[in-house]
């Protein structure tokens, strides 16, 4: 009994007991079907696509990637997508901050949040169709502009239309996320700051923003990933052969118009990688900012 370290497992324990020590039993096995599903239909296709991207129809193993980065029609899609996604993300997230700050004190927030959930629920296809009507040359928006003396503005089948649809579908999401982060900040922190002489701007700068920063980073990542994968609105509402030829269109065309699944997988990988890069960038900036709990102590 003496001299035996407590952490050594007893080899004479039956397998079941040993597994139970690691909390593996019948209940744990309940997680297996879902895990198998995700592995089979998410991880495996991803790996499959990854490998497939290195098996082009013609040329060496890097041919797909070389082709992508040498053909302007292809690599320009990254720029086109970023040119849409970055401003849309910044607008959606940054504007959500002052609005969320204001709305957090409302008693009947739920009406507003319910209204804002509707664009998210309806989805990008419906919003694209709606904007085609509403922003069209004879649509209500242009009519109103003409009524006030401004000329007709071209808002469909171009960059502007897609940008507006990204804001319409993306802002509610960013806003609801920001709101949930802001309401998670202990209100007594701002109260304490005000008793110490901090005016509203100072409170925002020294208390709210630092504590919000971690949530904002996540918000930026999620919103960016959403906007970067814009697809139906870029086709229906934009100029898919021109200014709004985004990378998802290139992937789609490779798969369903050219039947080049290898190339399509390669483009999907590039797309995923680009998103990963930006997300990593945002999150690495986050490490310079406070990342802990947002309440003011015990109690």
């Amino acid at each position, binding site marked *: 009994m003496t001299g035996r370290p407590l952490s050594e497992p007893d080899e004479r324990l039956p397998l079941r007991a040993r597994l139970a020590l*690691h*909390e*593996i039993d019948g*209940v*744990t096995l*309940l*997680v297996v*079907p*879902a895990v198998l*599903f*995700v592995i089979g*239909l*998410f*991880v*495996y*296709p991803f790996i*499959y*696509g990854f490998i497939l991207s290195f098996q082009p129809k013609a040329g060496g193993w890097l041919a797909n990637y070389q082709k992508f980065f040498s053909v302007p029609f292809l690599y320009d899609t990254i720029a086109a997508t970023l040119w849409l996604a970055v401003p849309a993300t910044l607008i959606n997230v940054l504007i959500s901050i*002052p609005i969320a700050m*204001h709305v957090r*004190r*409302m008693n009947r927030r739920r009406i507003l949040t319910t209204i804002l*959930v*509707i664009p*998210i*629920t*309806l*989805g990008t296809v*419906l919003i694209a*169709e*709606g904007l085609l*009507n*509403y922003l069209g040359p004879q649509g*209500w*928006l242009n009519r109103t502009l003409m009524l006030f003396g401004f000329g007709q503005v071209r808002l469909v089948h171009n960059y502007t239309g897609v940008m507006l649809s990204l804001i*319409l579908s993306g*802002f509610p999401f960013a806003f609801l*996320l920001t709101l*949930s982060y802001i309401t998670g900040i202990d209100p007594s922190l*701002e*109260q304490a700051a*005000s008793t110490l002489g901090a005016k*509203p701007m100072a409170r925002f700068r020294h208390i709210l923003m630092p504590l919000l920063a971690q949530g904002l980073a*996540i918000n930026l990542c*999620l919103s960016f*990933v*959403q906007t970067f*994968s814009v697809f*139906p609105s870029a*086709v*229906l509402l934009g100029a898919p052969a021109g200014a709004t030829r985004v990378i*998802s269109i290139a*992937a*789609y065309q490779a*798969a369903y118009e050219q039947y080049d699944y290898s190339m399509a*997988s390669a483009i*999907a990988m590039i797309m995923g990688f680009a*998103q990963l890069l930006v997300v990593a960038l945002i999150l690495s900036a986050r490490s310079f900012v406070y*990342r802990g*709990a947002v309440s003011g102590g015990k109690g």
Partner: protein
Amino acid sequence: MATQALGQQKSAGERLWAIAIWALVIFFVVNFVAMIATVVVNSFGTRWLGTWLPAGYTTRWYGAAWQEFQLDDVLIVTFQVVGAVVLLSGLLGVPAAYALARRNFPGKQLVILLFLLPMLIPPITFGIPLATVLYQSHLGGNISGVILANMVPTVPFVVLVMIPFVEQIDPRIEAAARVFGAGTGRLFLHVLLPLLAPGILAALLLVLVRTIAMFELTFFTAGPGSQTLVVALYYAVYAAGVRAGQSIDAMAVVYMVTTLVWLLIALRFVDPTQIVTRAKSGSAAE
């Protein structure tokens, strides 16, 4: 106290700021509502060219759309897909959530990461490789492929949504049930299921709403007979030059009504923010 602004004596600057904020919000909402209204009005209009409102009103476009886009078939397919996705996601997801909430096994963090990924990575990025695999397995182009593809983001969603619900149930209740002689089957049926029912309902309603609107995954995996409503709508708008706009808008209205009816039902059980913030709660687990 949390809802009290610090000292209500507002300066002129603060009042201006409040007005600006509200103006922005109202502008957004007004434009959005107007956009929806355009679609609805157009679907009921006889002709609408160059005027504020249509020349006259009719409901014939709905009949036309019903025929033209075979909406009866499409709706059946949509509900088959959505129903299957909801059921299967629940069957796979709820037990998994229970296991994750109650057991701390080696590799648990990895499993949670595994469930987070399909929710964080957008459908297009994994949709194309997924479609490729499905077509290779001859599941692409028909309804089973569509169902499987749509389950990829929803199974993790159900898991991540249900974990907090399970954690809320005191494990000692389960222990008590066992002490009083309940086997696992009866424990599940008489104790767990009733307690988890609201959470399961909330999660499944959210899955339902999300799947009706899920475009990309169905788009990549559907064949002509397995399109859901949102994909059929896309194709209709895409080929809009050939068809009358009003019948497309009629179809769009059918889509909106379908989605919003389920949204309203879901909102009776769920707070609007939960439709959005599940991804956040996974990554903010600090």
